[in-house]
């Protein structure tokens, strides 16, 4: 169960592979991996976005994420998890968040990874400020519920 806050750009696919390789004892034990990667888009609410600044609350962030992962592990039979979240200045196309869950069976992997993402979105103390192209900056007001279907 690893939680990383990264001030540098990260490659989600290397992160997952490295973590899985290091946890060598996992090989052959898990049957399912569910992964979610959230990436910065270059537009939002009709505006072109040039970049993003991700602020967080050091100390509370880690504590909140640990609690969320613990809840997922209590609820589903999870073998391991990896959570990486970016902070600082982020450019379009760069990954913001990675959640990976390893389980024996696929239903648990899907359920647990989605639970962690939704809880992270609603509880972990991160704040996004968008840098608009030629139109200053604005704070993102709130996150939407990812369990609801988009229109």
């Amino acid at each position: 169960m690893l939680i990383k806050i990264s001030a540098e750009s990260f490659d989600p696919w290397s992160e997952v592979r490295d973590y899985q390789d290091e946890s060598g004892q996992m090989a052959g034990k898990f049957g399912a991996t569910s992964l979610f990667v959230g990436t910065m888009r270059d537009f939002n609410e009709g505006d072109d976005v040039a970049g993003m600044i991700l602020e967080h609350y050091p100390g509370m962030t880690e504590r909140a994420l640990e609690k969320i992962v613990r809840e997922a592990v209590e609820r589903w039979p999870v073998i391991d998890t990896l959570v990486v979240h970016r902070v600082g200045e982020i450019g379009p196309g760069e990954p913001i968040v990675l959640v990976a869950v390893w389980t024996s069976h696929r239903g648990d992997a899907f359920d647990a990874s989605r639970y962690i993402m939704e809880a992270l979105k609603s509880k972990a103390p991160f704040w996004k400020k968008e840098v608009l192209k030629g139109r200053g900056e604005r704070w993102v007001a709130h996150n939407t519920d990812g369990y609801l279907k988009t229109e």
Partner: protein
Amino acid sequence: MSIKVRYFASLKERVGRSEERVTIAEPITAKALWRQCVPELSPPEQILVAINLDYADWDSLVKEGDEVAFFPPVTGG
């Protein structure tokens, strides 16, 4: 009693500071602490409170040595 108070994101910009140290005579609620620190604003309904890195209520008591944080809805992920 000495309390550390922190502000984040848009709230930090609105109150014009990221943290401060305040002195209180006895334990008070987070709401009373807000009124002491940010008298110009009534506690905005959507503002969240954390005491010692855990979410708390506006009615939670703040005491000596606590770190209290006020911040807007989170938007990570």
